[in-house]
């Protein structure tokens, strides 16, 4: 069972690479300078909608082989594609840093004179834009480039990842399963949860698992470990595609609004990579209304809020220019409330109630249930 939303099979990607290389060879043999078109991602040619960021029709950019810098780019592209092809053949992955070091191979370094990893990172980005299947970019993971993975998932989900072995995410250790570097290719065998809660901070996720919420509420608990990586976002999308309601629990801060909006809508820069957004994701908390609305659940610990720092405030101001925040009525309201009050809250604030832990557990459950109900997600 392969149900990744837009991933290609490895043979498909390899044949795509062969096509590109072959066309280039023919063009040059014909005595023509190659020219490669692609679509960039910027505010101009990306629009935000309820389904996340979407590329809209725009004028393509061209790598014009007659120009020196462009010829260098094409040389880098050709070299990169041959590297990817070989790694795919050998079923092996590489990191961004690995790819950078491949340019330290002497004959390559002499010609391309790569000055830093930024340059090779840009080449990978360009490959994603050039390798397309049915108008959709092939994510770098599919040609073997894997960013440092991050995040865990605990819950009654059975799957097989790149190890090829079948496992249940509630039996893979106290944090659950360390999420695959290539969730597009993970095979999901069985899902036995009513919702998945993704938590910004590891400690809160651990507490929820310790309190046996996954078992009692029949939910999955994911730990984002801060800003979620590509693999985590792809995994969330996989669950969403499989009908699992996605609930996100983050700090009440401008940075956390960005975390949530990236999960929900992907980002402008990566809008060509489908499958990194989960438009159905819901912001469970912490929200400004928790603290500042009359019957908010956290009004009693409003004193735990900390002043926003200068960089917090700057972040909130820049959020106004992020369509996925500014055009989303809920996130916009949250962001404006933060800017007005100039205070931020953290998940750890629950501990500021000073409640006995038994009461705290009840509070967690109440909070999650009540906030979920607001999104028509009913938990046991």
């Amino acid at each position, binding site marked *: 069972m392969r149900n990744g939303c837009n991933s290609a099979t490895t043979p498909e990607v390899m044949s795509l690479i062969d096509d590109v*290389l072959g066309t280039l060879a023919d063009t040059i043999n*014909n*005595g023509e300078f190659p020219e490669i078109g692609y679509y960039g991602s910027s505010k101009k040619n990306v629009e935000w909608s309820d389904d996340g960021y979407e590329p809209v029709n725009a004028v393509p950019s061209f790598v014009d082989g007659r120009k020196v810098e462009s*010829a260098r780019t094409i*040389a880098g592209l*050709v*070299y990169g594609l*041959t590297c990817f092809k070989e790694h795919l053949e050998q079923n092996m992955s590489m990191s961004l840093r690995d790819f950078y070091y491949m340019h330290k191979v002497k004959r*390559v370094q002499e*010609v391309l004179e790569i000055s830093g990893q930024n340059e090779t990172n840009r080449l990978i980005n360009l490959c994603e834009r050039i390798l397309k299947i049915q108008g959709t970019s092939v994510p770098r993971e599919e040609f073997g480039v894997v960013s440092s993975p991050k995040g865990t998932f605990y819950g009654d989900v059975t799957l097989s990842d790149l190890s090829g072995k079948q496992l249940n995410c509630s039996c893979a250790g106290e944090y659950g399963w360390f999420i695959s570097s290539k969730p597009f290719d993970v095979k999901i065998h069985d899902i036995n949860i009513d919702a998945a809660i993704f938590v910004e901070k590891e400690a809160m996720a651990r507490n929820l698992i310790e309190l046996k919420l996954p078992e009692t509420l029949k939910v999955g608990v994911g730990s984002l470990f801060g800003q979620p990586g590509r693999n985590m976002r792809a995994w969330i999308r996989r669950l969403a595609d499989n009908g699992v309601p996605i609930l996100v629990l983050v700090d009440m801060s401008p940075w956390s609004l960005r975390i949530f909006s990236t999960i929900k809508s992907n980002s402008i820069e990566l809008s060509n990579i489908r499958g990194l957004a989960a438009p159905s994701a819901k912001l469970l908390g912490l929200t400004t209304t928790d603290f500042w609305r009359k019957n908010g659940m956290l009004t009693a610990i409003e004193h735990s809020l900390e002043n926003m720092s200068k960089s917090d405030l700057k972040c909130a101001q820049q959020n106004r220019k992020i369509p996925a925040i500014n055009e989303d009525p809920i996130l916009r309201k949250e962001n404006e409330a933060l800017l007005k009050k100039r205070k931020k809250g953290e998940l750890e604030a629950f501990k500021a109630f000073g409640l006995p832990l038994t009461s705290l557990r009840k509070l967690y459950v109440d909070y999650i249930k009540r906030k979920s109900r607001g999104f028509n997600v009913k938990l046991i």
Partner: protein
Amino acid sequence: MQSLRHSDSDVVELSVSAWFYRNRTIAGFDNPARSLYVSVRELVENSLDACEGAGVLPEVHVSLQHLKTDSSEAEGMPKGPQVFGLRIQDNGSGIRREDAPRLLGRMLTSTRFTLKQSRGTFGLGGSLALLYGQVTTQRPIEITTGRSGEESKHKIVMRLDIENNEPILVHEEQQPKNPEDHGTIIEFYLQGDWFRSKRRITEYFLQTSMIVPYASMLFDNPDGESLRLPRVIEKLPQQPMEAKPHPRGIDVEMLKRMIKESRRSTLKSFLRGSFQRVGESTAEKFLASAALDPAAAPKAMSNENLVHMMKKLETYSGFLAPSSKSLSPAGLDVLKAGIRRLKPEFVVVRQRQPSVYEGHPFIVETGVAYGGELMPVMKLYRFANRIPLLYDERTDVSSQVIRELNLKNYGLRQDDPLAFFVHICSTKIPYKTVGKEFIGDIDVVRREIDLGLKDCLRRLGESVRRKRRVHRQERRESRLVGYYEFIAETLGKATDQEVSLVNLIGN
């Protein structure tokens, strides 16, 4: 007001020299280190003036030697002021025996209504140094001077009578000499602090060699070191000529004095005769526009009329710009040669048109150097009438201009290897202090410096950009071929077919 603390008889007028003796701090003689520096500087400047005035390429030999006193001193850093012998020799035209004591032993100013650029702005410099030497050591001053064509030179030993601003001759003798030789040697003693002034005095010689690159200088210092600065260009700048004042910027006091001294009987002839750039037609047009009678007698003019005329002189737009013949700018070649001493990659120099400030014409010359052996910080070199200005840089009008430059406009950055040069020459430099340390913030002066530097920067920016462009073009072509060779080889391996560049870029 003015309390009557003194009886009438105690309050008198002082001679200028007596007044300065009492207030020498304001002329820069405020501690032994500074005094030593100022003395060397004033006398070197006099020598350079003398050589240039005589039309010879200057050769100046300065020797500063520590005078061993009876009390044997401990080794190491000297504790306070010590006595030094200072000897300055130049190859100027020499001084006539009868003029020497008067010219050197008094503080004098010209009364003529003519203007001419010279280094010694306040007419005090050298004399004040000699005065300081006498006050601090009580030793007499020796002058040896000889003129071209004469068979002997004169040696004069004298003291200064400060209260009466008069020289006192102590001893005099004639010595034989080669008729071709000419020049003057001054030797005297003064208190000083070499340890604390060495850096500054050395810098003074180095910067002087930049603005006077046609001079050869040799400086033997008390540490036994010699700083030798041979000339790098065999060309004297054009010498300044005397000129009448320009009508713009004359104040009423000066107008009155000029009328008093003038023999002209009509306003029109007075204007023509007393001012530069005023001919028959200009005088007529001006008087008509000012509604003044060209035939009126200047000496009979009422105060109100004089004020009226001054205001009109100030605002009348029909005068030509002041003549620069009384000025002697360094000239572009000389300036460039001087800046080249710093071994930069690019040098751009500019000379502004003459302008006028309080009736004194002035010319601003600017230069900007880039790259080469310059350090990657902005440095400013300031010169006024060929004198380097070393103190109080931050307060100088040029510093203000540079602070407000936007280097980005010229494709340059703050940390580029840049040096700025500003030379202002004028019949009267608007110094803020008698010590000639920095130039005041006069609007019209600031504007000229600003425009001059910006002009240099524009041209320099172009040069820097052009050089970068040519360099880029060459590299570009060889790189393009290199990339395609790499592409062909890599594609060949990956696609298992031969990829040839013959059709694309030949073999």
